[in-house]
């Protein structure tokens, strides 16, 4: 099994498409930091402008944690697109390349091949989120240093002491990675249906965008729909920046994401193992 996973990972990481996500993040994050170094302090101060009538604000909230937090907020919608670029290709790519039949005539069962592809897709997803986290936090702290972090939550503004921040980022990235795994599983599901990767990539992203829009429409019908949309729980990472962290909600949302992950992956497995492969 490990050998199969290694081969699958080799295949994945040999494709140029795999590095689009890494490349984009490698360009985007330093670029965003350069921009923030020019005007980010004003942004941090602007968040507290309403307070300045009553309070003297001493010190700065503009630091590495702040810019990393901004990056997480900004890339929240974009990262799923980078995930589906590879996840959408996982089965469809074999069909496009004409290697499906050869692959399936090998001794490993379809379920085992599916498991290997699913694991390598998840590993790719985790590596991309890890890369984003390491680059944004590492570069942010290196350039802007550390300090207190200001965060906006549904309940208001929360300011965390510098020592209270690292564990929040760690858990936030774990939460973000878990949510991205769900996006990857959706792309795998779509990929298992078709023979061209473009469809799953665009389809997955379209679903993510559609669900995000539906989930934000302030009408009763759409509000009632929110619990059934996986995108509702994709901001699980944001819950780590509440004070105090509502662990019950975190556990519930992580569990809901788990249900969606199981549904999408199970669906992909059902389609893949029953698929009549003609290419």
């Amino acid at each position, binding site marked *: 099994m490990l050998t199969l996973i290694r081969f699958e990972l080799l295949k994945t990481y040999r494709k140029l498409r795999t590095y689009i996500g890494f490349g984009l993040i490698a360009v985007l994050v330093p670029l965003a930091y350069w921009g923030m170094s020019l005007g980010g302090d004003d942004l941090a101060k602007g968040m507290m402008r*309403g307070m300045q*009538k*009553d309070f*003297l604000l001493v010190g700065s909230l503009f630091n590495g944690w702040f810019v990393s937090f901004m990056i997480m907020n900004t890339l929240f919608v974009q990262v799923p697109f980078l995930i589906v670029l590879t996840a959408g290709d996982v089965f469809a790519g074999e069909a496009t390349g004409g290697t499906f039949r050869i692959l399936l005539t090998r001794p490993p069962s379809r379920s085992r091949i599916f498991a290997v592809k699913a694991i390598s897709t998840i590993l790719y997803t985790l590596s991309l989120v890890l890369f984003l986290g390491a680059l944004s936090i590492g570069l942010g702290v290196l350039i802007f240093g550390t300090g207190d972090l*200001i965060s906006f939550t*549904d309940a*208001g503004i929360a*300011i965390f*002491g510098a020592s209270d921040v690292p564990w929040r980022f760690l858990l936030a990235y774990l939460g973000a990675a878990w949510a991205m795994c769900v996006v990857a599983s959706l792309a795998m599901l779509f990929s298992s249906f078709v023979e061209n990767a473009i469809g799953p990539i665009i389809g997955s992203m379209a679903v993510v965008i559609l669900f995000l829009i539906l989930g934000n429409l302030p009408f009763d019908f759409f509000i009632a729909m929110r619990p059934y949309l996986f995108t509702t729980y994709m901001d699980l990472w944001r819950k780590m920046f509440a004070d105090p962290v509502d662990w019950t909600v975190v556990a519930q949302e992580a569990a809901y994401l788990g249900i969606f992950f199981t549904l999408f992956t199970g669906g992909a497995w059902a389609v893949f193992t029953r698929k009549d492969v003609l290419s």
Partner: protein
Amino acid sequence: MYKQCMGWIFAGVLLTLAAVQAQPGPTAGQVLKRVQGEFEKVRDYSADISTVVDVPGIKTPPMTAKIFFKKPDKVHIESSGFAMLPRDAVTYNPMAFNEDLFDAVLQGEETVNGVKCLKVKLLAKSDTVRLQRAMLCVDPARWLVLKMTTDPAQGGSADVIFTYAYIDNAYFLPSKISLQMINPTGFRESKGHGMKMDAPVAGDKRKASVSLVYSNHRVNKGIPDSIFKKDSKTK
């Protein structure tokens, strides 16, 4: 002889009472002068401040800062992290209550923490002054402001209670300032749609409380002017 003596004593008591009755109380201006006189002895001071802020819609950890003050009105506050300090309380300086800026009126007495205080109402003479109205409760024994009710032109009104430390057996400086603000900043919680920094809503009378504890006072030890030019919160 006995009757004559009693008559003199009675007359003496009456005269004393009459004299006491005739003795006018201090005017508002005199009260302020005495308060300022007490602070006049302080040429400069520095102190560490630890603050706990409880503002609706804002969660903050306990914060620390260091304040530097130098006559006449130089204030510099610095913090290794981030600190939010109530504007009118932390920069409290009784020398600012001068007759050029404020009309002062005595308005009876009020007991603050068991001390009977004189109430002095201040009204800004110009609308460019930040503090438009204030009520000071002054301890007439030590000539210290124990309570200040502020009504600034911008921002929420506040009740400020001062507790003093007697530093170096010579100077009274705040050791604790407790502050209650009514509807500061106009922050409103808006579930599901983030934070709104709107104007205060009518009837929205939520209170915020802030506590400042001062320690490590160093008075009249000399503070270089360069401190007040540092890039931090300098007034």
